[in-house]
């Protein structure tokens, strides 16, 4: 025997703020409301992230082929990673690099020799086109690249395309410290 089902009309619990007309200015009514605005700001901010623990140095080792005295053609160093770089707004990334310069050699090198090694430094992972700087070029239009939105990611810094300053026919002077500097800059642009 089917039990008799008596359906009770239970008023639905309506979850809305009491829709009583707000009190007019100076008049009280059975309900009263106050509005509050909560505000805050986040400045445009960039952080180049945390370098990996390989240290901030590309150690290229011995630069020359010791049998010929010319620059090695197989100079290689693993990329370095800046993890967790971010900009809270649209941004530009730029790379600036200086040629590897023989630190203990002063003055102009003798004929047939060079005291500097050029290379290309690049920062990739931030923009579609990596920012890159060729220390041997007169202009580096590609050294600054832009992103049009807030972004976070890893920046990979690499070095490549080593060449003897002045030409491949020159030999690098002997020096146990050739030094170049690479600067990667993230700038927020609002």
């Amino acid at each position, binding site marked *: 025997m089917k039990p008799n089902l008596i359906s009770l009309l239970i008023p639905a619990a309506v979850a809305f703020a009491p829709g009583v007309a707000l009190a007019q200015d100076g*008049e*009280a009514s059975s309900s009263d409301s106050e509005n509050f605005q909560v505000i805050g700001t986040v400045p445009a901010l960039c952080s180049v992230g945390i370098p990996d623990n390989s240290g901030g140095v590309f150690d290229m080792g011995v630069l020359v082929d010791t049998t010929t005295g010319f620059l090695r053609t197989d100079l290689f160093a693993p990329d370095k990673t800046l993890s967790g770089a971010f900009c809270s707004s649209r941004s530009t990334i730029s790379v600036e690099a200086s040629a590897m310069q023989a630190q203990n050699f002063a003055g102009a090198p003798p004929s047939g020799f060079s005291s500097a090694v050029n290379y290309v430094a690049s920062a990739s992972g931030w923009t579609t086109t990596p920012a890159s700087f060729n220390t041997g070029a007169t202009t580096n239009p590609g050294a600054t690249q832009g992103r049009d939105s807030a972004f976070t990611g890893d920046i990979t810094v690499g070095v490549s395309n080593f060449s003897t300053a002045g030409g491949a026919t020159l030999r690098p002077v002997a020096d146990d410290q050739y030094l170049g500097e690479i600067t990667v800059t993230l700038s927020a642009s609002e």
Partner: protein
Amino acid sequence: MKRIIGISALALAGALASQPVLAQSAPAEGEVTIIGTVADRCLFTLPSKLIDLGELSLPGTDGNAGKLDTGQVNGASETLEGWCNGTAATMTVEAFPIENTSFTATPPSGFDRVVNFTASATANSVDGTDDSESAGAGTPVAVGMFAGPIPVVLSGASTPGGGLLVAGDYQGLVKVTLTPNTSFGQPD
């Protein structure tokens, strides 16, 4: 108590009839005395009136909003009508507080549900008053013989705690009693 107002006549019993009939030259006179009484009495010819004070609390949203608006009470009045026919009539007034009839529990701290006031009634230019805060009627006053309006006026309104008035319907009362002199012309 029935009061019989009658004319009692002296009955001349047959005493006269028993006297010998004499021939007289002057007419014979007899007297009938008529007496009556009017007892002291008071009566309200217009015994009931209503004062509607409307909204009792102060409007707006400032610091006094919701408290007693004394201006609504003080000066409110209505006029009864009545008379007393004796010189020793008295009048008493009894004021009952204006109380919230919708909310009868003890109000929370900061709230009141009672409005006290002073009522005054005037008969024959004599004022009788009473405070609603004090139980019982006020002191009787001698109004004497009069017939006419008896205005009743409220004043001195206040709340016990000076707090916010609880919402609801409020009701109070002013009773005016006219009492004739009771030492004359009363039935046994």
